[in-house]
């Protein structure tokens, strides 16, 4: 059982304080850095896609998991990021400039959505963001002069600082760079007042207000940051897809993102990463399963959504804190061995919300 002996406040603030954490994170980062050495192109591409979805997940997690604002429309920001970047690059704008412009645009749209949605809660917010998603999807489809509409838009090749990065491993490192940046930055956010104000708005708008938190502005900020990060994921996603179509960024995609963060574990950056891993592994696991199941079940078209649905239901009913929750319990078990007790993790339930003022 490792007990941390802290002597300064810095020890509390620092990431990776315990040796165990350092080792774990170190191994993962080393693996990710070395991946192109032993993974084939196809798997490298899949890993890169996983990283991109992790970024998108972190974007949504900041908004929904940390600030408590349910957003059903985040695929719209993926779409805005992907399309804006591709359109800019196809007109000759350099990669770096395009990234900055696209992220800013995405962030601003997010802030506008946050402003309109700041008075709404929970379910109304989800529906409003869903409607926003549908409108963006329609816009992408109908604005043919710019986006080529439903015929699709070809994504220009990945080219940074004039160097063409056509190879799989090159694109992979770009994805990895941005992923590490976003993970680091997002984690930073939550050890500062800005991040804490997000948590405050999630848990009690009322007392947050009485402590000086401008709740409306926090929501706008959170929407903006979340949209910008998800827009970044959209940029990287575009280079994986190489061909964009409006219906890729629809309700199903938004549901995938939601699934990621809920099953991963609401309220933690690691949860978003776990969720991304799950989303990427599911189709792979499915194709393995298909070989073992009798043909009548295995060949069905609806098998994947069915499994998706079942997994969500099982997690929410039996492990509401998601994969992250289960991970924490396992970690806690090992750290406090042999003193672990099941009652160490007690879930807090809140009953009818109308009984409490927000």
């Amino acid at each position, binding site marked *: 059982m490792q007990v941390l002996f802290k002597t300064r406040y810095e020890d509390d*603030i620092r990431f990776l304080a315990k040796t165990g954490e350092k080792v774990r994170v170190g191994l993962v980062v080393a693996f990710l850095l070395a991946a192109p050495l032993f993974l084939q192109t196809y798997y490298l591409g899949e890993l890169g896609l996983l990283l991109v979805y992790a970024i998108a997940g972190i974007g949504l997690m900041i908004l929904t998991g940390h600030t408590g604002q349910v957003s059903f429309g985040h695929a719209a920001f993926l779409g805005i990021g992907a399309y804006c970047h591709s359109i800019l690059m196809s007109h000759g704008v350099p990669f770096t400039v395009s990234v900055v412009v696209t992220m800013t645009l995405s962030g601003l749209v997010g802030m506008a959505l946050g402003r309109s949605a700041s008075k709404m809660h929970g379910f109304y917010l989800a529906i409003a963001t869903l409607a926003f998603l549908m409108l963006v999807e329609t816009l992408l489809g109908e604005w043919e002069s710019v986006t080529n509409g439903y015929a699709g838009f070809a994504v220009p090749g990945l080219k940074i600082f004039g160097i063409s990065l056509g190879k799989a491993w090159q694109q992979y490192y770009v994805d990895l760079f941005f992923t590490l940046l976003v993970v680091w930055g997002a984690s930073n956010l939550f*050890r500062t*007042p800005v991040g804490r104000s997000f948590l405050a708005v999630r848990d*009690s708008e009322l007392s947050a207000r009485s402590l*000086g938190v401008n709740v409306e502005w926090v929501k706008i900020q959170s929407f903006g940051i979340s949209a910008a990060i998800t827009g970044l994921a959209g940029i990287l996603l575009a280079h994986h897809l190489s061909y964009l179509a409006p219906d890729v960024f629809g309700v199903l995609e938004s549901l995938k993102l939601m699934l990621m963060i809920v099953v991963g574990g609401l309220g933690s950056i690691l949860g978003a990463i776990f969720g991304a891993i799950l989303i990427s592994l599911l189709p792979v696991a499915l194709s393995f399963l298909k070989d073992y199941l009798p043909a009548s079940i295995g060949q069905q078209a609806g098998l994947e959504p069915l499994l998706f649905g079942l997994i969500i239901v099982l997690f929410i009913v039996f492990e509401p804190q998601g994969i992250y929750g289960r991970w924490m319990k396992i970690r806690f078990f090992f750290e406090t061995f042999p003193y672990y007790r099941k009652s160490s993790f007690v879930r*807090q339930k809140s009953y009818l919300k109308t009984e409490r003022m927000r």
Partner: protein
Amino acid sequence: MSEPQQLSIRNLSIMFGGVHAVEDVSFDVEPGEVFAIIGPNGAGKSTIFNLISRLYEPSAGSIHYGEHDLLQLPAHKVVQTGIARTFQNIELFEQATVLQNLLVGRHHRTSRNPFTSFAFLPAVKKSEIEHRRKVEDIIDLLELAQYRDERIADLSYGARKNVELARALCAEPTMLLLDEPASGLNNEETDDVGFWLEDIKHDLGVTLVMVEHDMGLVGQVADRVMAVNDGRLLAIGTPDEVRENAEVQQAYLGATEEDAE
């Protein structure tokens, strides 16, 4: 820390539906005093607090704290004038740790830039540590050291009440509004609250305004008491004066035998 100001309330009224929750209430709270508001349930005591915190909009009246006209301010700017509060039903951030809750108490004194926070620049780190120091002082004062890293959701009721008080103190207020600080606590815990309130008054020089039902606590710490019923002010004065007041007795106990004859 800056000096406590006088709280001036004049003709404050608010209506919900057709009912006056608070009707034409006027009173002053002198800087540095302990002022208790008593009255039966539903008398409008918490409503007065909510009006001061600007969570409700009054239908008439004025609220001044020193030279600040509170009615000109939105709710989140009230704490900057030096007023902090606790809530009757404990409005803590359940999923966060005690430390995080207390640090949010420092919020209005922090500068908040998402870009520098994202990069966790040295200035941000330095500011974090400074605020952590201030928070630790309050943790010492209210003996919360062992709960520092616990999530609120895992704490007992008494501990939560403590954290609620501590969080309000972290805002470095000049006036504290305490909504039923002793509700739900046993005698020992209530005594502790009394001692802490006196400590806060003497060490920090903060004005304390509290809504309270526990008359023992009120008698122990309060300098002046105000009794309200049905949204209206019944009496205001020292604890003994208010206790002797006939209308106050009637509000609490109903008509006495002499009145019935």
